[in-house]
């Protein structure tokens, strides 16, 4: 049976601020630049979720697309969209809101809710801007 990877893009908009409380204002400004400005700023994030598994012979599908959309919306979009991530999300109360940490958080949220009947969660890509992208492989898989 053929194994494929299917990727779907999702979007959310959110604000954040990069700041380390143990550093001085000047040191934070030097390390994070504009991303440290005191009131935060926002992005239109694009997130790509990749699943990997066998193609169902009867349906020709690797995953029920509506079921995948539902879990991503429930676990990620509803949680992240139109929020100030530093203040509105408890997991970032003490964790810096970098795209790296967001990708890992998204992976953990999806994993915790991932149905057993689903193909494997294979890869997560989070694009903060067109120039800044984090790739997080979750499994090695068939690549």
């Amino acid at each position: 049976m053929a194994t494929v990877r299917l990727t779907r893009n999702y979007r959310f908009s959110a604000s954040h601020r990069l700041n380390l409380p143990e550093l001085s204002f000047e040191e934070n400004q030097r390390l994070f630049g504009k991303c440290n400005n005191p009131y935060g700023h926002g992005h239109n994030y694009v997130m790509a979720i990749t699943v990997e598994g066998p193609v169902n012979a009867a349906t020709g599908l690797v995953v029920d697309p509506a079921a995948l959309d539902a879990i991503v919306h429930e676990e990620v979009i509803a949680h992240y969209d139109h929020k100030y991530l530093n203040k509105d999300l408890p997991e970032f109360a003490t964790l810096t809101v970098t795209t790296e940490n967001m990708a890992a958080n998204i992976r953990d949220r999806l994993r915790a809710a991932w149905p057993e009947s689903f193909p494997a969660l294979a890869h997560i890509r989070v694009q903060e801007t067109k120039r800044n992208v984090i790739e997080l492989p979750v499994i090695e898989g068939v690549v």
Partner: protein
Amino acid sequence: MLISRRAEFSASHVCRSPQLSEEENVRLYGAGANANGHGHNYVLEVALEGTPDPATGMIYDLKDLKDVMMREVIDPMDHRHLNHEIPPFDKVIPTTENLAIEIWRRLEPQFKDAPARLHSVRLYETEDTFVDYFGK
């Protein structure tokens, strides 16, 4: 090292399983189950794996790769109705998954004696949905 080339084709299709009820088809394939079909601008990315030839500096001549993609995939499928005109989609549901697998089947033999091997087929159905197939 990988080298890849992109090509586009536009085609129509219907995603319906004869094993499912009308209600189940609509639930699973959504608007894709519309009996009269609908279309996409598909984007195909084909990647070859190999080592650059010391004489030419190339893994594979991109013009030759373009010709193979045009001959085996784009020319036959462009502006066609996949279910009605492109076997095996009279019997196999032309989901993005099955279409990527069929494109691999058409391309893979073309590189049997080539200096590079087919690494992957990536097929975008829309800008926001794509399938990768690695022949496994």
